[in-house]
């Protein structure tokens, strides 16, 4: 187990002595068959009322007014200075009803901030914290649909009927459920939310139904590796207390034409003054030593940034990572220096993200 915010979460399943092999096997199960991870620790909020969409428009950088019911959309939250403070997904369940997730570590802070903001804005919206009222798992892998279909009477899970980023409500093995087609780990996947008293039974049923598909439960370490292969950031790991969306290559998540969101003014000012660092994907030669997170990146011998995520990818057969570098080092194909243990310098090559499945064909299958 490993700490994650206020929780302990499974890092991997098995003996610590076998950690490296277990994480690799769990990751390969997701890439080749199917895996199951408990994500119940995510923050979860019901945003309901006539001003629900307007409220999200103010709280998050993206656009939600025209989001159709039955679809999910990424949410990115910045503070007044434009600093990234959280992310998640907003599912529109009805005209005036959104179900919003937040990161495990920031769940309470996001809920508190929502209440604080709306005490000022006085929008006609109700904010209910349902973080512990719903349990959630992510069933991911190329066999996920085949596994799930017999359990979902009345729900059409086909690609056309339930496409990527869609949200459906129905029953799984007789349990009321919300299903989100999301792709954090880059494979066909379903995030399944059920009332928490059903959570354990859901896990049991999925593991039981998954045996013919060689399902493996996977932990946070495999999940972090898999999302790294897809180039997805983790707020708090690949961002820090000063990171703005422009530095983390997250400008695609900013709806610039909105009149307001928290942090908009600050981001506009920072955009005019330019950025001092940028997050890039990098890879190392196969024989290179493995850097650690927070090892420094250099430009002409001076500190330019730091490694934020790094791992040896079993799917790609090489070391991959994310790091902040000087913007002039960010062009794909360029090399930059990483200062590792004992002061050794190694060369890393900037590559285009994502590392894995660049066309997103696997998660959208």
């Amino acid at each position, binding site marked *: 187990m490993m700490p994650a915010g206020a929780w302990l979460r499974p890092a991997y399943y098995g003996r610590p002595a076998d950690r490296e092999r277990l994480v690799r096997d769990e990751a390969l199960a997701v890439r080749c068959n199917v895996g199951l991870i408990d994500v119940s620790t995510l923050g979860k909020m*019901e945003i*309901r*009322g*006539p001003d629900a969409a307007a409220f999200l428009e103010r709280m998050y950088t993206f656009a939600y007014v025209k989001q159709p019911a039955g679809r999910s959309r990424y949410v990115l939250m910045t503070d007044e200075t434009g600093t990234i403070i959280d992310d998640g997904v907003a599912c529109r369940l*009805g005209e*005036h009803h959104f179900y919003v997730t937040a990161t495990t570590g920031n769940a309470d802070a996001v809920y508190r901030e929502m209440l604080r903001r709306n005490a000022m804005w006085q929008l*006609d919206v*109700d904010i*209910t914290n*349902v973080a*512990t*009222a*719903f349990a959630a798992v992510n069933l991911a892998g190329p066999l996920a649909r085949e596994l799930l279909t017999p359990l979902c009477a009345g729900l059409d899970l086909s690609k056309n009927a339930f496409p990527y980023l869609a949200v459906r409500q129905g029953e799984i*093995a*007789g*349990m009321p459920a919300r299903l989100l087609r999301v792709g954090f780990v880059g494979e066909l996947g379903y995030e399944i939310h059920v*009332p*928490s*008293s*059903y959570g*354990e*039974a859901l896990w049991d049923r999925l593991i039981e139904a998954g045996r013919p598909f060689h399902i493996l439960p996977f932990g946070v370490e495999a999940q972090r590796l898999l999302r790294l292969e897809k180039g997805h950031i983790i707020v708090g790991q690949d961002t820090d207390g000063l990171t703005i969306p422009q530095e983390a290559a997250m400008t695609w998540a900013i709806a610039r034409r909105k009149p307001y969101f928290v942090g908009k003014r600050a981001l506009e000012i920072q955009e005019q003054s330019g950025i001092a660092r940028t997050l890039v994907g990098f890879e190392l030669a196969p024989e290179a030593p493995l850097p650690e997170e927070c090892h420094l990146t250099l430009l002409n011998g001076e500190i330019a940034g730091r490694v934020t995520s790094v791992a040896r990818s079993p799917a790609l057969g090489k070391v991959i990572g994310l790091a902040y570098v000087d913007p002039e080092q960010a062009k794909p194909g360029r090399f930059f220096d990483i200062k590792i243990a004992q002061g050794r310098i190694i060369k890393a090559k900037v590559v285009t993200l994502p590392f894995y499945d660049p066309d997103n064909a696997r998660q959208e299958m």
Partner: protein
Amino acid sequence: MAAALPVSPDPSTCARRSPIYRILAAAGASFAAIGDAAIAARFGDSMELEVDGARRLGLADLSPLPRTGFKGRATPEFLSQQGITIGDASNRAYSCGRNSRAVRLAPTEVLILGSRGGDDDLCGRLEATWPADTGMVFPVPRRDGTFWFAVTGSEAPAMFAKLCGVDLRPGRFDNHAVAQTSVARINAIVIRDDINDVPSYHVLGDVTAAESMWSYVTDAMTEFDGWLVGIDALSSLARLAGET
């Protein structure tokens, strides 16, 4: 000669599970089916001893029982339309249905507790009829977001004095009074709801704190020779006391 006990369902095979069902099973609970869940019905073979324990100091897990909640500015009106009358005062519990309670937590927020016997469908009926399209009443999933324990008996106020800053003695904390407070440093809602002459308190808190709360209360109970009790003992106590 004691009556034969019905076959106890295995809570680990039920779709709905109490957050502490493993602890209850390890403590020797026999379970009874209630909907798609199993609830601890009794501990041991002697109902007389268990009822006596509940009279002195008992702790029961009611988490599998129905409960729900509503919030929003039209909540009192909605409940009134459903035949549930609540008073103006917040932090009070009001009787409704068959031994159910409507607990007013705030002017626009109400917690509904189904009966301790699990023998009415008030919560299900309310959840099925709430006006989803008005944007003025919103359900709160209390059955999944909170644990629900009952602490009963004459020694309960003294036991609570070790865990809670609120004076819960009968002379200081009226029947049907509500405290939104902390118990053993865990946020909790405490509702006094006597079973006739037996002081009785509902304790609800975040479901993730259920195991902790259970262990803190059982630890605090040892000084007073407290008992784990099932809903059969509570039902028996209510019958003996004349409740329906």
